[in-house]
């Protein structure tokens, strides 16, 4: 069987980046960026997620099918969030209570 064995160096670099990003997100959160605080926090979280998934979970060596599965999962999470929020965000657009 052919297996990718990544070097300890790669893993260490990824691990250190993750720690750095954790520190970064904690520090940046204290600075007032207006609405961009949330954007920044989520952006860093997404980067961290990508690092863990691609390197620690070996997604970069995985089959296309596995990548599709993961992408599908994220897409469906998006559907859940976007279509539900479509209700909550548009409430009150029609100036009638409860519409």
């Amino acid at each position, binding site marked *: 069987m052919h297996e990718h064995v990544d070097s300890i160096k790669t893993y260490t670099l990824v691990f250190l980046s993750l720690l750095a990003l954790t520190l970064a997100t904690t520090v940046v959160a204290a600075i007032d960026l207006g609405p961009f605080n949330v954007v920044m926090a989520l952006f860093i979280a997404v980067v961290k997620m990508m690092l863990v998934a691609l390197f620690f979970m070996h997604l970069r060596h995985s089959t296309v099918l596995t990548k599709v599965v993961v992408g599908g999962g994220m897409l469906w999470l998006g559907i859940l969030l976007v*279509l539900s929020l479509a209700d909550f965000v548009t409430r009150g657009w029609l100036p009638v209570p409860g519409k």
Partner: protein
Amino acid sequence: MITEAVQERENYLNASHGIKSWLLTKDHKRIALLYLHTITFFFFLGGIFATLIRLQLLTPKGGLVSADTYSKLFTLHGVIMIFFFLIPSIPATLGNFFLPMMIGARDLAFPRINLLSWYLLVIGGCFAMYAMLAGGVDTGWTFYVPYSSNYSNTYVIATGLGIFIAGFSSILTGLNFIVTVHRMRAPGMTWFRLPLFVWSNYATALIQVLGTPVIAITLVLLICERTLHIGIFDPARGGDPVLFQHLFWFYSHPAVYIMVLPGLGVISELVSVFSKKPVFGYKVVAFSSVAIAVLGFLVWGHHMFVSGQSVYAALVFSFLSYFVAIPSAIKVFNWTATLHGGSISYATPMLYAFGFIGLFTVGGLTGLFVACLGVDVHVHDTYFVIAHFHYIMVGGTIMAYLGGLHYWWPKMSGRMYPEGWAKLSALIIYLGFNLTFFPQFILGYLGMPRRYWTYPDEFQVLHVMSTAGASVLAVGYLMPLIYFMWSLRYGPIAGPNPWGATGLEWRTASPPPAHNFEETPVVTTDAYDYAALAAMEEAKVG
């Protein structure tokens, strides 16, 4: 009892003996039979609730059961029928039995997980039964908060746990099917050679995997709310009951397709075999299953047009709902076109297929009414909706399930069912069904709300018709139970391929050996290639 039927040759039924060989089996065929027994039990249990509901509604003032009991009856009818019968029905029995065989595999990818799924369904069922015996549950199968969280004094937690556990059964079945279809196909079995039953079960599995976890977390939140009073849906603390409905329907609308998609797959098989023609527009029909699965996730808000959801969200959900109509319509048109120029047999499974197409068409077309914003405001939560979804789930899924059961019965048991009785019961079911549910469309449009213990006098005529239909329907459903059991001992021996069908499952003995095939089959033709089958038979004879 089945083991006595065929004794000459080793098959999955007589390969090992004893209760342990069944309860610890990893054979997908045996697990399918375990499911078959379990869901038959739940079907008749749910049927008893339905009968009591219909009897109560015979007269406007009822009086057969108390209002409290009535609420529990319709709740348990919904819970048992949906979560413990319809959702596992076709995938877990016919799918479990035939999906691996149709793709030429020895078993599902995860046989032990398959057995675990059955145990989870049984354990979940036990929780639901406990709730029923301890005093019942009265929230409606929809569990809307805050009634279910703060007001009902019934066994909501036990029922919720039961559904939660049964949900994992469904998830694991779906996971197993997806992996199996991707990775266990026989050599030469390309995606576009897959029988349409496999396609539709694959699409179903996608929904099971992507949707069911959301009902799981919803139930966890509901149970937390009831036990720990965390208040996530509590209006007094700013919680929003409509949020619960979003979470609930995110699963429960696609769940409708978990229930009906496998049925659509069965019908594709039946229409092809009994007209000896490949399904018209194979690829279109295959993709329409996947399209229904995907689009099914975008429309849940159409259950909430009058719920206090924003009108703009309602607009989006109504618009998207109409997109699901297209792949459904495509299927009906393609089945009809398949019949053209065919060699059409009137065997019982085909009668069920005809019945299915008719009832599914009516169910689907009335779906256009409830997806239509202006009309849904009037018919929402009335008997119109009840009639609509029974046309899809009973007229659709159960007709397909029975059709499939008759079709594959010879393969599963090695024996034929009695054709005359079967035809009669198919007819009775069809007529009884229409008499039960068609009047409910009219009732609903007249304004009869659902879940009413009593009702105004002017609705009685239609209710009496409906109850009369239900009793006919009950007779129709009891008949197969009896003659299937009869056929296990007395039915004529079926050959490996009594219908002249092309699927791989018909290329092995009836009943099949424990590992399905003597040799891993190699696939060289498309699905439904009757000419190739005829040539092969000829070669064998020659």
